[in-house]
Structures are given as C-alpha cells and as structure tokens.
C-alpha cells in the first residue's frame, strides 16, 4: 500500500479504491455501522433520527415549492394556490411542507423533553446540548419566515407583530425594525428577504446538525439510566440494532404525518391565512403558529413590552446555561425522586402556556400565563440548583447490562421468557 493512503478494510475493489483515497465508507461504517450504542434505549431515543429525516423532507419539498412560488406581495398568495391546483402533486408538496413544520416541532419538542428528563445536557454533553439549542433557535427563525411566504392575513400580521418586538429595545429599536423590514412597513422587500433567508437557513441548520451529530459521536449517547457504558456488554452496534429500532419509530412518525397531510391538512394552520394579506384590515386575534404559543404566552404575560421580549428570549437562552444550573450529578430522573414531580409540573406548565398562548389576552388566561411563566423560570433558576444539594438520589445500577438482564449477570440468550420487548 502506497504511503498516504487510508488502509481500507473493504473487499469490493471499487469501494476499496475510493475508501483508500477518501475514507467515507470507513467513516460511515464507524459512525453508523459499528458505532457502540447503549443497549437500553427506549423509544424516546428515536426522535433525533426522526428530526433528521424531517429536515430532509422539509428541504426536499421546499426546493420543489420554491420552483413554483413567486415572492411578490401581489402574486405570492395566488402562486401558492396555483401550486395547490395546477402543479402536479403540488397540494401534496405544500401540505407536506406546512404540516412537516408542525411535525418537526412535535419531534424536536419531544427530543428536548427527552434530554431534560434523562439529563442528556450534563457533562460531558454540555456543548452537544448547546448546539441543539442553536438548532432550535434556527428552526424557529426558519419556520417564522416560512409562514410569511404565503402572504395571507396571518403571514402579514404575524410578521408585523413579531418584527415589531424589536422596537421594544430603547434607542436602536425603531432602526432595527426598519432594517429588518427593508422599509417602513412589512412589504415587498420584507417578503423577498424572508424568502431568500427561508431558503438559506435550512442549509445552515443542516451544517449545525452535522456539528450536533459530530459532538454526539465524541461523547456517545446518553441512555435512560444516565450511567456510562462500562464495556462492550453495555453496548450494541448501531447497525442493525438501532437502525431496526429507529425504523419502527419512523413508520409510526410517518403514520401521524400522513393522517395530518391527507385528512386534516389545515388543522394546525389558521383559516385567516387563506385570506390574502391586507395591511388595512387587522384580524381580530393575531396568533402565531401553534409551536410558538408557549413563548408567545410568556411574552404576553409581562405587562411591559421590553420586559416581555426579554423574558421570551430568556426562556430559550436559559437552556444554554442549563448544564450549569442543574447541580445534581445524577443524569436520569429515574433516580431522582424529587426532581421527577417538579419536572412533571414544568412539562404541564409548558403545555398550559401552549394553550393560553392561543387565547385572547384576558382573564383568567393572563393570570394562568403568569403563574406558568413564573414556574417555568423558577424550575431552572431555583428548583434545579437547590435540588442537586437537597435531593437524595436512588442508588444507581452498577452497569447498563445488569438491569437490562434483570436477574443480574449475563444469561445465555433466550434463557428468559419475554412476552414484551423492553428496550
């Protein structure tokens, strides 16, 4: 073998020739083939792969939609309807793209909850977690700009309300808003730049997802027990074990997705967005898409505009420092009897905020939003830091293999009856 060539293990001469010069096959084999993965994942560990698939679906459908879309205030709405009517399977592309955004957020929210419950943000995975928060922020920006493109009433007024948030900042606020708009109101320049950025951002997300996965493959995955694998008995190769398990989750995901696209394509949207944008008519209730509602509720819970904006951004920014706010050395909440109920209440608060975010800003919703917002922050800023000191965690299992194999110690394969799968 000549110097400078990678020593390839592949037998096929063509693959071997390429692999010796550019070891992508070796890399794939290492990262997705033999990659040692904890053997005890539950189905919550499907959601990272699902998010990846979802991103690809969004980019694929989006590219074809962009071929038929016109980014002009006078033509955007009709061009979207032309896609629905005259483009071959245009309705499928558009409904898959619109509902794909909702699916993306469902998947990512579950993925984040998974991380919160099993302590996936703790050392050594802090940076992996922070990169994930960056992806979440990029997703939000992308989704927001995408919703503006059909140029319906909610597109226009949503864009007006959200961009106007920046005017809350003293001194520079108004200038920032004018700069974002490219003019003195949400208009054609705004639509054009949003289209351009909406096309760009998914590829930025793709790049950051690559970093997310690269970081994951350095630290290895967390697992439901939150303890580190201690040897080969605690792991299985990614393929075929988790490719098979992810496939199951993927099909379930596609079923939910298909039910939305084919039978309730407009359930998660807003009827007002089928009315062309009209700067002279304000809809009675301006609400963002459902996946922004928890944060919209936090924004409106504060009587002061600047305070609301800061708290809203703070509610996501706080996730960046979460690895250092949670002082408990135990990762998985399975072994944290006190943290578990507090986290359950936090999840409830998130869903409550999602609900009241879509309600008009009146009683009792305002008070409910304030209580839920207070708890949202209290959980991160007070409860988690204190719990690490006060809580007495349950004893951790010795290794991953032990509790999985119930009786303890390795047993011959098939020696136990197992009526249910128990990953």
């Amino acid at each position, binding site marked *: 073998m000549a110097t400078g060539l990678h020593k390839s293990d592949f037998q096929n001469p063509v693959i071997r020739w390429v692999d010796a010069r550019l070891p992508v096959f070796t890399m794939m084999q290492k990262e997705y083939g033999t990659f040692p993965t904890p053997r005890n994942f539950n189905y919550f560990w499907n959601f990272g792969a699902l998010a990846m698939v979802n991103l690809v679906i969004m980019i694929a459908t989006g590219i074809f939609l962009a071929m038929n879309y016109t980014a002009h205030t006078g033509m955007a709405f009709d061009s979207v309807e*032309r896609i629905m009517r005259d483009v071959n399977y245009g309705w499928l592309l558009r409904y898959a793209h619109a509902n794909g955004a909702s699916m993306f957020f469902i998947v990512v929210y579950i993925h984040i909850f998974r991380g919160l419950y099993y302590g996936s943000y703790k050392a050594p995975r802090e940076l992996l977690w922070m990169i994930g928060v960056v992806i979440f922020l990029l997703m939000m920006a992308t989704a927001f700009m995408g919703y503006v493109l059909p140029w319906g009433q909610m597109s226009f007024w949503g864009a007006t309300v959200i961009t106007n948030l920046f005017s809350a900042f003293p001194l520079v606020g108004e200038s920032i808003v004018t700069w974002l708009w490219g003019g003195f109101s949400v208009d054609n320049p705004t639509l054009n730049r949003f289209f351009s950025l909406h096309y760009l951002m998914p590829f930025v997300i793709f790049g950051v997802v690559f970093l997310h996965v690269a970081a994951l493959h350095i630290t290895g995955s967390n697992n439901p027990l939150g303890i580190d694998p201690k040897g080969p008995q605690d792991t299985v190769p990614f393929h075929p*074990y988790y490719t*098979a*398990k992810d496939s*199951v989750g993927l099909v379930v995901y596609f079923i939910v997705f*298909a039910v939305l696209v084919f039978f309730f394509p407009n359930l998660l949207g807003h*009827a007002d967005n089928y009315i062309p944008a009209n700067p002279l008519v304000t809809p009675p209730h301006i609400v963002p898409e*459902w996946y922004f509602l928890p944060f919209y509720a936090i924004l409106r819970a504060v009587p002061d505009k600047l305070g609301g904006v800061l708290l809203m951004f703070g509610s996501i920014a706080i996730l960046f420092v979460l690895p250092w706010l949670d002082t408990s050395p135990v990762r998985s909440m399975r072994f944290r009897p006190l943290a578990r109920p507090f986290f359950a209440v936090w999840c409830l608060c998130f869903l409550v905020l999602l*609900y009241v975010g879509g309600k008009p800003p009146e009683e009792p919703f305002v008070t409910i939003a304030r209580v839920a917002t207070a708890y949202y922050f209290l959980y991160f800023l007070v409860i988690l830091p204190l719990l690490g000191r006060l809580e007495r965690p349950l004893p951790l299992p010795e290794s991953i293999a032990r509790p999985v194999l119930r009786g303890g110690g390795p047993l011959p394969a098939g020696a136990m009856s197992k009526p249910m799968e128990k990953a």
Partner: protein
Amino acid sequence: MSGFRSLRALVLGLGLMAGATPALAAGEGVSLPDTRFSFDGLFGHFDRASAQRGFQVYKEVCASCHSMHLLSYRNLRQLGLSEAEVAGIAATVQVMDGPNDEGQMVERPGRASDRFKSPFANEQAARSANNGAYPPDLSVITKAREGGADYIHALLVGYEDPPPGVQVADGMHYNRYFAGHQIAMPQPINSEGQVEYHDGTKATVEQMVRDVTQFLTWAAEPELEERKAMGVKIIIFLTILGGLAYAVKRKVWHDVH
C-alpha cells in the same frame, strides 16, 4: 416494558398537542349546525350532481357580486361537465384580451382556459357598488373561514329577525352566525325556486344552500378526493410496513434481550 410506556406517553403527548390546537382557534359566537356532506370523513368525495347545481347557484346568484378568480372554466370538467358544455359556459362571457398586433385591446368570447370572469374590475368598483362593503373572492372561502363548509352553510341559512333590543345598522342585516351578527350581504338565497334546476331537483332554500356549499368546497379543495383516496392507501401501506418493521426489530433484538 418501559418502551411501551414511553410510546404510550408519546401518543398521549401528541394527542394533547393536537387537542389543544382547535381550541385555540375556536371562534367566538354560536355553535354551527352539524351538516353532513358527502366530502366529510375518511372516504369523502364530491357529489357531482350537487356541485353542478351549486355552480348554477353561484353563476345565477353569487356571481353578481363575488369573484372566484383562482378558478378556470376548464376546472369544471372535474365536476363532470363535457368539453362542449365547458366551452359553452366560457363563451357566455366577454374577456378583454390583447394587445393585438395593432396594439389594441380586444374583447373576445371566453375560452375554457380563461379564469372565471370577476363581476367587478377592482376592489374599489366592488365597494362602490355594494354600499362600501367588499364581497370577498370565493375561490378558497371554505378554507378561509373557521368551521369551513359548515360555517358557509350556517351563514347562508342564518338570516333572521334581530332579537328584541338589537339595533341593526343601516344597510346591514342580522345573521345568527356572522361575527358581530351584522352582515352587509342581504340574504342571497332567500326563496324557493330562486334557481331553476335542470335536473328536476326541487330548489328549496336548504337544497340550494347545500348545493352551493358543495360547489364552494370543491372550488377551495379540488384535490380533496385524490388526497383522501391516496391517504387511505398510504395509511394501509404504512400499517403493514410498521408491522414488518416491528417484526424485524424483534428478530434483530432477539439475542440481546
């Protein structure tokens, strides 16, 4: 076991999210009467005879004020009209075309490829002819209103005398289902036999309203039949695939558990 528990939690979570959503958009006002249309449900389809009658109602009643500029006459083929019938319908309108080789705009009879001709040249003309109110374009109206077809049906039959003590503004009409109850549009479908159906169907108010709702739903979602039929096939396919994927997963994991 825990795998099953978490899967159940996931389904529950999804249900919660989906359940929360219709509530957050629930409009104000009265609940709509439940109307069963042929296009409801998993296997929904359009009742073509009804939609054709609905087109007649649109043409003879609604079209004097409401445009449907996203539809072309050729789209009517989908409702079962023949090429000749569509050409005949299109030819009844005069369309401005051009400029021709001399640079002149010319009027010509409509063709199947033309969009439905709008009753007014622009929004200002429409408002000026309608006491300042703008009759909205009806191309996607069932998608553009909370409640969809049920709402359109309810609105059209919802005209009644105002309850005692309610003052209706000049040129406005009381409607049970309209937001704020005061609507500029006078009851458009108001008397039996207003439209003379060619197929002998008795043109009661309810019949005409149902027909035009059928037509408007088709106009807003012409893909509905294809979409639902494809959905049924895909769900069946995915269910089988899911069973296979699960069996493969069990087999692969057999020696690990």
